[in-house]
């Protein structure tokens, strides 16, 4: 990252949008601009409040020459520019661009605004290609997350976040894990039922999906119900209706994962939903074909693979790799056969990365532990697949042979 050399002395900043673009609703612009500011308040104590009268940051959508001697050039080329704090912090967007929200077409207002506000706060362009503060527009990123380079930059100016946020603290990890810890952590050990009712899972352990939330809790979905898993069994008080913790989310979910931006994505049929904690993160459901172009409908499962931090989708005998920062996000070489993942069966039910760093896949009554370093299902005793009832859900007895 690069610091320009100036910053705001106060952390509570006010902004105003004095000129709106013609092709977007005002309410959409308002919410997108606030969301773009939130990118920076997520990791610092900075706050951004819309206001009238005297404000710190003035935001305008302008065409061509607009009074600052730095004219815009029409569609493409220069998209926007912003002034460092010492020059006032204002942000100007080229009104000739086709600004869009949550769409692969046009130019994504959220991403460009978040970048420009980085300048408004004192960040220069970064030479880290993946950073938000890199100067080039990379196209719409449906699973945007701030790069650690940007986080270090903004925290160098304004310090780390100290105040509690109503939003969950996001995991900034890049997907790698500490191998030294992996070997010290244990497999989920068999234990009797712990007060919750695991009857459904013990009777039929085939699950819809399993995932870990941004705050480190592991959840299992089956039908309309969900359970929270402990290190050894299921937590007391479960199952609960899915809708009680994720309002608006239907049952019989196909797949779910939590990305490094801390947001959890749920998939069912041709649609997907995005949540921050228990709150739906905008207007959902949306079409998988729109938000995850190149991924088919009716997937079996999806995981963020620790080997490279990319998102893998599985369906039937095939898998697809989705890289949000690449264009296109799914390369033409996909789909590939699941048999490339040594030891994994086709037609998976669920998969996720557990706190010990291993990726686990579930199918029917059993599960497989995938060793991301060896790129194969572990060959250990007892062999995989092992029975999910005994090893994950706290059911009393492992059936014979498992």
């Amino acid at each position, binding site marked *: 990252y690069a610091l*320009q050399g100036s910053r705001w002395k106060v952390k509570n900043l006010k902004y105003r949008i004095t000129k709106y673009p013609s092709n977007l609703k005002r309410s959409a612009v308002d919410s997108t601009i606030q969301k773009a500011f939130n990118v920076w308040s997520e990791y610092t104590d900075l706050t951004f409040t819309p206001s009238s009268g005297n404000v710190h940051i003035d935001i305008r959508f302008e065409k061509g020459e607009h009074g600052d001697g730095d004219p815009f050039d029409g569609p493409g080329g*220069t*998209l926007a520019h912003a002034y460092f704090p010492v020059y006032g912090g204002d942000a100007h967007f080229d009104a000739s661009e086709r600004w869009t929200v949550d769409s692969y077409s046009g130019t994504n207002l959220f991403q460009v605004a978040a970048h420009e506000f980085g*300048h408004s706060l004192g960040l220069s362009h970064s*030479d880290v290609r993946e950073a938000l503060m890199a100067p*080039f*527009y990379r196209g719409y990123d449906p699973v945007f997350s701030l790069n650690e380079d940007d986080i270090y930059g903004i925290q160098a100016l304004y310090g780390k976040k100290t105040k509690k946020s109503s939003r969950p603290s996001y995991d900034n990890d890049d997907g790698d894990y500490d191998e030294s810890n992996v070997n010290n952590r244990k497999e989920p050990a068999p234990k009797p039922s712990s007060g919750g009712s695991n009857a459904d899972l013990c009777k039929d352990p085939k699950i819809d999906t399993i995932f870990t939330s941004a705050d480190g809790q592991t959840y299992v979905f089956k039908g309309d119900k969900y359970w929270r898993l402990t290190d050894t069994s299921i937590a007391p008080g479960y199952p609960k209706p899915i809708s009680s913790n994720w309002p608006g989310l239907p049952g019989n979910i196909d797949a779910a994962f939590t990305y490094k931006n801390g947001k959890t994505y749920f998939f069912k049929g041709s649609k997907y939903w995005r949540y921050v904690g228990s709150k739906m993160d905008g207007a959902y459901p949306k079409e998988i074909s729109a938000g995850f172009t190149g991924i088919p409908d009716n997937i079996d499962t999806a995981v963020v693979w620790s080997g490279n931090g990319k998102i893998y989708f599985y369906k039937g005998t095939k898998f697809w790799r989705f890289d949000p920062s690449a264009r296109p996000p799914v390369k033409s070489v996909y789909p590939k056969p699941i048999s490339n993942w040594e030891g994994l069966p086709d037609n998976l039910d669920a998969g996720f990365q557990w706190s010990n760093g291993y990726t686990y896949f579930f199918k029917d009554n059993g599960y497989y532990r995938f060793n991301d370093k060896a790129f194969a299902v572990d060959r250990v005793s007892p062999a995989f697949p092992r029975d999910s009832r005994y090893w994950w859900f706290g059911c009393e007895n492992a059936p014979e042979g498992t």
Partner: protein
Amino acid sequence: APSTQGALLYLSQYGYLGATHINKNNSGALVDEKTFQKGIEDFQMFAGLDITGKLDAQTIEAMSLPRCGVKDKVGTGDNRAKR
């Protein structure tokens, strides 16, 4: 795709030519080859391209990308007068 003149404008606009300022109205400004090559190299380095010092296809493509209008090189302060 930018011509040499277009590339000069680009490099000037985004801070790769130091104090040399070029705009559409004084496009005849004299820039020696060494300054141009250094500007290209700096841009290639910043954009993560192979550093050839030449206005090659990868560089032209990178210069054609939509981008932020703020300069990549905002100065190191070397040219500030001593107070």
